[in-house]
């Protein structure tokens, strides 16, 4: 089936590059305490939230932009960004009929249905979607169904209003605003995002999904996601992202925090397809994201799976703090770069509890003139007895003008810890391609086949619907890169 889909998709350019003609209400360009107050007022936030933002902002002012990553790009002009953009009219959306028809068209073009009924009938596994356009969440589906189980799935803004105690308790507990430059920026100006709480003993009956889209010109997207799985809870969470094709670079600086309590499990899957810029490297999204989860208590598990095909520059290290004993952290990643894309991505696994386990499988694919780096840290703290890590970092090169780099850092403070690291670099072989052709399979299809085979261990971790989308994306991203 994968191949049929691949064949449909081959020869497509970035297909999500359309702009939706929706009136938006924007804040003036630039960043100041006034802008932050403006955002906070617009969102009708309580005092403690504004205080948090301002603290983060003042701290951010003291920071320098980080430069340690293996990427180079023009410094974003932080005064030339719109930090708040809301599709108008902004009112409570009770039913689908009230949604702006232009917005509905956007959904359709993106191939996501917000008509819950359709989902119910057609697809075997149901997905609840929170759709975030520019700065705000515009529609969350299946809320009522989920509420019956006590699951809270709503926009971050709504959570601040409706569940302030939960937000107060967990926000910033995994990624403090002092964490890094972009986390501080996000904490100051974030406008919306998704919030999810799975109560004790509940297995979330459907995939929860957030779809992020940057639409307006000149805007940055700074969303926050907070996922909490209480004791014995389980949730699988999906994140997708697209943006229009624009000549200028747009900034996306998100923060994602995950908390897993005792025996809880959270699976977080991302298919990142922000606009990568054109073939000459003009335009595209700067994707500077801080994602971290904490296995707070015993026997909990957090798994990150990501397929990264988009963005001009990616800087992202989904990490797990393994605090509870016997907790498990996983990172499965495919990162594709083509043309002039640059990616510096990987993970950090912090082993604090006893018998903690982590697995890292990273598959980098570079084509064109791109640069693709894996950067990972495995730290085993003193007292984290019998911690184990297995890391495998593979790089696949297509052509001879691209680069692949691996930066694994290992710190073992407890003698009982065992860390295994394997790394390979290979070139997509003329021999492999010829072998496929000799069996009647053309170049593009052969590349799709070989690349999907190479990424199989990671793609297998994705929920079904996402795996299909990811396979398509891989083929499209690498179109025309060999032969």
């Amino acid at each position, binding site marked *: 089936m*994968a*191949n049929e889909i691949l064949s449909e998709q081959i020869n497509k350019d970035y297909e999500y590059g359309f702009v939706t003609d929706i009136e938006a209400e924007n804040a003036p360009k630039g960043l100041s305490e006034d802008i932050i107050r403006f955002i906070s007022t617009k969102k009708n936030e309580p005092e403690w939230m504004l205080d948090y933002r301002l603290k983060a902002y003042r701290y951010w002012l003291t920071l320098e932009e980080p430069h340690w990553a293996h990427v180079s790009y023009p410094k974003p002009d932080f005064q030339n960004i719109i930090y708040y953009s809301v599709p108008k009219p902004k009112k409570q959306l009770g039913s689908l009929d009230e949604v702006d028809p232009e917005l509905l068209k956007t959904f359709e073009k993106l191939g996501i249905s917000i008509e819950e009924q359709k989902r119910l009938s057609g697809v075997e596994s149901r997905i609840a979607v929170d759709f975030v356009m520019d700065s705000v969440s515009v529609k969350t589906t299946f809320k009522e169904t989920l509420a019956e189980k006590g699951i809270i799935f709503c926009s971050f803004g709504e959570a601040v209003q409706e569940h302030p105690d939960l937000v107060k308790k967990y926000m910033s507990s995994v990624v403090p605003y002092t964490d890094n430059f972009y986390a501080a920026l996000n904490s100051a100006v974030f406008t919306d995002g998704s919030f999810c709480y799975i109560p004790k003993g509940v297995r979330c009956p459907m995939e929860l999904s957030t779809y992020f889209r940057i639409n307006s010109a000149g805007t940055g997207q700074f969303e926050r996601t907070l996922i909490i799985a209480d004791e014995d809870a389980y949730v699988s969470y999906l994140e997708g992202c697209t943006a229009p094709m624009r000549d200028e670079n747009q900034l996306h600086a998100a923060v994602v925090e995950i908390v897993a309590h005792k025996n809880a499990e959270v699976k977080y899957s991302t298919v990142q397809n922000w606009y990568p810029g054109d073939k000459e490297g003009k335009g595209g999204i700067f994707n500077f994201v801080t994602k971290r989860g904490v296995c707070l208590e015993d026997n909990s598990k957090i798994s990150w799976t990501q397929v990264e095909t988009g963005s001009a520059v990616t800087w992202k290290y989904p990490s797990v703090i393994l605090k509870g004993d016997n907790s498990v952290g996983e990172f499965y990643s495919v990162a594709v770069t083509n043309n002039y894309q640059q990616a510096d991505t990987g993970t950090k696994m912090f082993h604090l509890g006893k018998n903690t386990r982590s697995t890292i499988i990273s598959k980098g694919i570079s084509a064109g003139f791109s640069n693709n780096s894996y950067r990972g840290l495995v730290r085993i703290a003193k007292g984290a007895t019998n911690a184990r890590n297995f890391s495998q970092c593979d790089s696949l090169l297509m052509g001879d003008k691209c680069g692949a780099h691996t930066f694994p850092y290992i710190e073992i403070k407890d003698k009982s810890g065992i860390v295994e690291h394997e790394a390979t670099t290979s070139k997509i072989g003329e021999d*492999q391609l010829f072998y496929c*052709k*000799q*069996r*009647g*399979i*053309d170049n593009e299809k052969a590349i799709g086949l070989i690349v999907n085979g190479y990424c199989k261990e990671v793609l297998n971790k994705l929920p079904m619907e996402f795996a299909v989308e990811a396979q398509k994306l891989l083929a499209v991203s690498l179109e025309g890169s060999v032969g």
Partner: protein
Amino acid sequence: MLSIKNLHASIDGKEILKGINLEVKAGEIHAIMGPNGSGKSTLSAVLAGREEYEVTEGEIIFNGKNLLELSPEDRAREGVFLAFQYPIEIPGVSNVNFLKTAINEIRAYKGLAPMEAKDFLARLKEKQKLVELDGKLANRSVNEGFSGGEKKRNEIFQMAMLEPKLAILDETDSGLDIDALRIVAGGVNKLKSKDNATIVITHYQRLLDYIVPDVVHVLYNGKIVKTGPKELALELEEKGYDFIKEEVNA
């Protein structure tokens, strides 16, 4: 079916094939023998359309079509199959998925709809039996971690699945023990029909105990220097290639 006339081919400016002439008719099995380095694999690569080789002179007509004008994949779709001397591994791509893709690509070329899943499965079962291929191998990644013999057997399995018109077996016998040899040869014999043809490239006469050729050619230094009936193979086995070399150089 296949007509090769005065074929010259070179790689990196070095001429390897120096005027090959060969006529193969439907229903025939031809054996091409010759010492190492004589150009046997080069001939099969040129037939399959490997781009590194430059054809400097001559023509290849396959079922009325100028083969040299077709891309490698179109040659395959027209029914040319090459069992590789050194089969390639494709990690993560299952044999089954690989073959399904290949079959449907070939069908699409002929304007046919993709094969029904149940028909595909039926063919898979049938051919697996034919070449006595372990069912587990069919589901494993293409050639990944296969032993030398398993790889060769997998080539014959693919051949059986794709049902080509012209199959070229490049030293499929090398590295096979006697049982595997018998199975591989049995597969080739069972697939023989009046509509298809096979070119068996081999170094040793051994394989020809099992696959009986209609014609035997000796390739030496880029040329076919001798053609004869199946007994020629026995003569070669007995006397070695030296007598050919002497004849040629005399």
